């Protein structure tokens, strides 16, 4: 059943095209209803001044009932932000992408949340278990059962 995800995503895409993205967020590609790329920048004073990141969203046909798989892209052009909840392979430990996902969230809503997660970062460091996690991480971060760290970081 391709219906539910593609219709919802078509609506989100139309909204992005008519209303634009929030400051610091840009659509890089949305050529289909399976994978979208967006760029993310933290505006104003932050640990990430001058850095631009890219997010990869992968959708299942049941989106938004099922959460999208979201990760930072690690390519020649984009790096994974150094953050206590972001692994060097781009995987993100954030409860809204897992147990706290809600179908009223959207692609832009997730971007804004991740933007503020970066904006409030005080110290740039990797998660303590980065090396161990990255060595065995699945391709799709949704297959990881993250143990959520405190949300104050």
């Amino acid at each position, binding site marked *: 059943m391709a219906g*539910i995800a593609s*219709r919802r995503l078509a*609506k989100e895409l139309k909204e992005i095209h008519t209303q634009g993205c929030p400051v610091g967020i840009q659509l890089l590609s949305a050529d289909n209803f399976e994978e979208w790329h967006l760029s993310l920048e933290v505006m104003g004073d932050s640990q990430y001044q001058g850095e631009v990141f890219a997010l990869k969203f992968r959708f299942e046909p049941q989106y938004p*009932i099922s959460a999208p798989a979201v990760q930072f892209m690690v390519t020649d052009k984009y790096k994974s932000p150094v953050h206590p909840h972001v692994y060097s392979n781009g995987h993100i430990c954030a409860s809204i992408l897992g*147990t706290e996902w809600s*179908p*009223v969230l959207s692609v832009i809503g997730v971007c804004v949340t991740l933007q503020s997660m970066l904006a409030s970062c005080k110290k740039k460091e990797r998660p303590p278990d980065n090396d161990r996690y990255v060595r065995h991480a699945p391709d799709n971060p949704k297959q990881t059962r993250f143990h959520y760290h405190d949300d104050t970081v």
Partner: protein
Amino acid sequence: MKVTIKSWNAIAQWRWDTGKADQDDADEEDVCGICRVAYEGCCPACKMPGDDCPLIWGECSHVFHMHCLLKWIGTGQSKQQCPMDRRPWVTAERKVAPSNSS
């Protein structure tokens, strides 16, 4: 057979009574937060709006297409919570507004 509609005249319109005072003059239509389709439209699984694709009201005051909400509540991930406020979902008695139509 291909039918071309040349003209039509609207004689009535209907809306779900979502209990919001401003719904009568709201130009922008309210949408289901899950599928983002107007309440008066239907969920992605249905073709016909109306009684076959009704709304569901929560005690928390949030409203969704019933089919959308049930699809969510049916997943383990939902933890039976309202998608809007994450409070336990309790379906409200459907409020029937006092009829003041003539």
